[in-house]
Each structure stands twice: as C-alpha cells, then as structure tokens.
C-alpha cells in the first residue's frame, strides 16, 4: 500500500539543481546591482569635474552660486580666459620647473637602479633602504635647514633651486622603480656583454638604456605629475615671480577679489596637464602608483 513512497520522493539531486539555478539568477541580479552601484559611484567621483566644467563654460552674467548646478545656456570661455590671464606666468614656471626636474631625477634613479640591482656590493641593501626612507619623511622635518642651505648656496627664491630640490627628493622613488625594473632584466644579458669586453658603464649605456623605455616612461610620468602638483617646497622656496601654478592657484583661491568661478576655472587649468597625461598615458601612471606602494 505504501510501497510507492520511495519512488515519489523527488530525486536527491533536484533541490541542489534548483538552488544552482537560484544561485545563477541571484548572481545575475547581483551583477546588475554591481554595475548600478559602480555607475553611481563614478557619477559621484565625476561631480567635482562636472561643476568645474559647467562653471567654467558659463558667461560672467550667468554665473551665480545659487545656480551652480544649472547647465550653461551656451559655451563661453570668459572664465577660462580670465583664469589663464591670472595664471599664465605660473603655468610657464611650472613647465620650466617640472621638465628638467623629472628628467634629472629619472637619470639619477636609473643609475642607482642599475648599480643596486646588477652590481650589488656589501651594504648595497642598506644603501637602498636608506635611500628609500627619504620618500616617506615629512618635509617639515628638513624644511628649516633646507631654506638655510639654499640661501647659503644662492639658490633660494628661484626656479633652479626648486629644480635641484625636486631632483634630490625624487631620487628615492625613481631609484625604487628602476631597481625593480632592472631586477627583471636577465643577468645573462649583462654577463654576455661583459664577455664581449664591455665595462660596467658601456653595458649600462648599450644594454640597459635601450631596454629601459617602459621604466623611463613610468618614472617620467610619475615625476612630472608629482612635481607639477607639489606645493610645500614651492611656497617655501620661491619668490612670487617664480611661483609654480599650485602656489598661484592657492593664492587665487584665498583672494577676496577673484570670483569663485574664475578660481574653479583656474583649478581646471592647473589640473589640465596632469589630467591629460593621465588620460593619454594612464597605464604608466598607475604603474608608478603601484611601484610606490609595493616596497623593494
């Protein structure tokens, strides 16, 4: 009478199959939810750029804090022109400062990276660690002697002095990136070049440098961004006629006479070069970012 019970019982595998399907559906829902959350977050991250952009594109008559979020009625460049007029000499200063400082610190970093990865000597690890520590120090701890020293050697106040300072304090990060990069170059390459009779510097010049393009790209982009964006050294070590754009922009923002819309347009102008580099060569920038975090 009760014989069929066993047969009627659903196969043991069934609940599992149902739960698998439920799982798949849940996963799909989660995916859609994930994209929605990401899109929302991305919108939040772009909000400041949106405000800067629409503010910059409004005409002077149209600008008001109460209508900050409204789209402009047309495209005007009044704000950008005004901001550019105020910041032009400083943008020029920033270029004059950033390019040689980035190149200088890259060259020194490449020398160090080569020696510290392929020509290790007793104590080279200690030298490397001591160099690395230089990138973490709060610059307030060396600021007073730095000002005194720059005055002593007559490099206080102008751009050349600031270039020197950025080269020196750039050495730790550039050394780190080059050392890690060169460590991945097979030692056989070095050895075969040595067997061919090349000395240490020729090997560097003819084997390592041609291989270094990606590392130079990472280092140059990283240093360009950092030096362009730097503020503390610039404000302490330069006189107004040599101010780079960060100091001038900060002054613009603290001023009571410059309108907020011109300040915001100035901020966008000051950010434009590094943003452009990020958009075009972001891959290298991100590599520099990661190199700074992953020690050794």
């Amino acid at each position, binding site marked *: 009478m009760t014989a069929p019970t066993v047969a009627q019982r659903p196969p043991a595998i069934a609940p599992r199959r149902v739960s698998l399907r439920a799982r798949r559906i849940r996963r799909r829902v989660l995916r859609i939810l994930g994209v929605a959350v*990401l899109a929302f977050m991305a919108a939040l991250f772009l909000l400041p750029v949106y405000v800067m952009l629409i503010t910059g594109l409004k005409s002077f008559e149209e600008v008001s804090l109460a209508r900050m979020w409204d789209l402009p009625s047309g495209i005007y460049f009044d704000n950008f022109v005004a901001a550019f007029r105020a910041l032009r000499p400083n943008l020029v200063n920033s270029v004059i400062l950033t390019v040689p400082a980035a190149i200088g610190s890259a060259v020194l970093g490449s020398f160090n990276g080569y020696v510290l990865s392929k020509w290790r000597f007793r104590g080279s690890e200690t030298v490397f660690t001591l160099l690395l520590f230089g990138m973490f120090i*709060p610059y307030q*701890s060396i600021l007073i002697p730095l000002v005194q020293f720059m005055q002593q050697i007559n490099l206080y106040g102008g751009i050349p002095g600031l270039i020197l300072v950025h080269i020196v304090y750039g*050495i730790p990060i550039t050394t780190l990136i080059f050392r890690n990069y060169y460590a991945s170059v097979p030692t056989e390459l070095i050895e075969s070049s040595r067997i061919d009779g090349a000395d240490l510097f020729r090997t560097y010049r003819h084997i390592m440098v041609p291989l270094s393009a990606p590392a130079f790209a990472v280092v140059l982009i990283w240093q360009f961004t950092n030096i362009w964006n730097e*503020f503390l050294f610039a404000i302490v070590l330069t006189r107004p006629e040599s101010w780079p754009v960060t100091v001038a922009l900060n002054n613009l923002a603290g001023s009571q006479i410059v309108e907020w819309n011109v300040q915001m347009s100035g*901020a966008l102008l000051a950010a434009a070069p590094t943003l452009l*580099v990020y958009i075009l060569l*972001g891959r290298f920038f991100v590599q520099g970012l990661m190199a700074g975090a992953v020690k050794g």
Partner: protein
Amino acid sequence: MSRDRLTAAAMIAPSVILVGIFVYGFIAWSARVSMSDWQGLIPSYNFVGLENFTQLILHDRRFFIGIRNTGVFSLVFLGGAIVLGLLLAIMLDRKLPAEGFFRSVFLFPMAVSFIVTGVAWRWLMNPALGSRMSGLNLLFDRLGLDFLVNQWHMNPPPWGMAFIGIPALWQMTGFAMALFLAGLRSIPEDLREAARVDGASEFQLYRRVIIPLLRPAVLSVVIILGHISLKIFDLIIAMTGRQVALDVPAIYMWTTTFDANNFNRGAAIGLLLLVSVAILVVPYLWYSRRQEAEL
C-alpha cells in the same frame, strides 16, 4: 674589476651624497635647531635640551588640537578608504562590463594636486546656509535630501575636521582600490572554486577566504595612506586657509616657523612628525626588505 667598482661608485655617488645631505644631514641639523633657543630672524644655537619638545607636548594647546585633528581626519580617511576601496575593488573584480572605464574614473583624482582638490571642494562644501546656500548643500536641498544639509568642516570641533576627510577620500580611494584589486587578482581562481564547491555562499567566500588573504594589501594601504594623513597639509590650506579649528601639526610647523619666526619650535614639530611617520614606516620597510632578501 676594480675599474668597474669605481664606475659603480661614481654612478651612485651623486645620489648618495645628495640624499645624505638633504635627508640625513638636514634631519640632524633640524634636531640641533629643535634643541636651541632660536626665535627671531637671526639664527641662535644655544642648547636648551628638550625644552621645546616638553613645551609642545605638555603645555601647547594648539599642538594638542592639531594632534586631535590629525586623529579625527586619519580615522575618517583610513577607514573610508579601506571600506570604499575594498567595495569598489570587489565589484570591479567580478568582471562587470566597462571595468576599465570605472577603474580610470576612480583613479583619476590621484593625478590632480591637493590644491586643485581643495579649491574645487571649498565651493562644493560651502558652509553657507539659507538663501546663500550653494555647492553640495544646494544639491541636497534640490533633491529633497534636506537632512544632509550641514556646515561641513565648519561643524564644531573636532567634527568639522572629519569632513576634510571627504575630499581626501575623493582623491585617494582609487589608490586603495587599485591595491586591493591587485591583491584580488593575485588570488588563484581555484581557491574560489574550491570554496564554492564546499558550499560556501558568495558572502562567506569573501568573509572567510578572500578578505583574510588581502591582509598584506590592507597593510600597504594603512602604511601609505596613514603616512599621508600624518603629513596632510596642502588640502587643508587650499580648502580653508589657516583656521586654528582645522589646524594640524604640519600647518602649525609652517606658520610658527615662517610667520612667527619660532624656528626652534618649528623644528621640534617637524621632528615629532618625522618620529610619528618613522614609527609607521620603518618596521614596514625593514620587514619588506627582509622578506625580499629571503626570496
């Protein structure tokens, strides 16, 4: 061989000498200034022992406020960056569409200076209320989110300082995300499959398997962002100018040295900052160097 040695020495000598002077020499010189009576425009190096330090730590209200502010800021900044960064990284790791685009969006603020961030956010976080309302407050008001309208960094201390963490998070969360994402990508797929086969739910998978494996990435985020928050300076200057309520030691050092000519006190603050950063960074540097030596 010895010629090569000479070349090697010549290649690293400029850097070693420059860093030797500009980092270690200057730190030593700062230490000397910090133990001197130098106040005023003419340097004076009469030794006064640790007086400037005890004065700061025991009796200086402004220094105390600065430390408290750094604490409040670090809490918001580090906590926010870890939680948000982890969340974004986990979502990006799940191979959602347009992953590359999202990653670029979350990282782009890293390419911008703190000064630019500060200028933009001082208008977004405009504390004015009522008819003069603007920025985010205005947006909240328009969207019917009135309960979010507030005075931001002008809230009574120490909570005002917590809001400075928001632009800092805008700038640096992408960095935490990138580190976590790299950590997630290094976890082998087999491990996740194994956990799934064992019947772990997705939540359990993250809770019990994946997040514990991200501990080294969390450590990196804490060290790097932690030392940035100890040094935070430009962002506050650009957002608020110099207000005592939002003061931090890095700003105090600057104003007391270059506006008030208290060089000895400035040097002492600089060194205390250095010690706090060293406590955070040196064990990490030492540990990761040693770990590499073992490999």
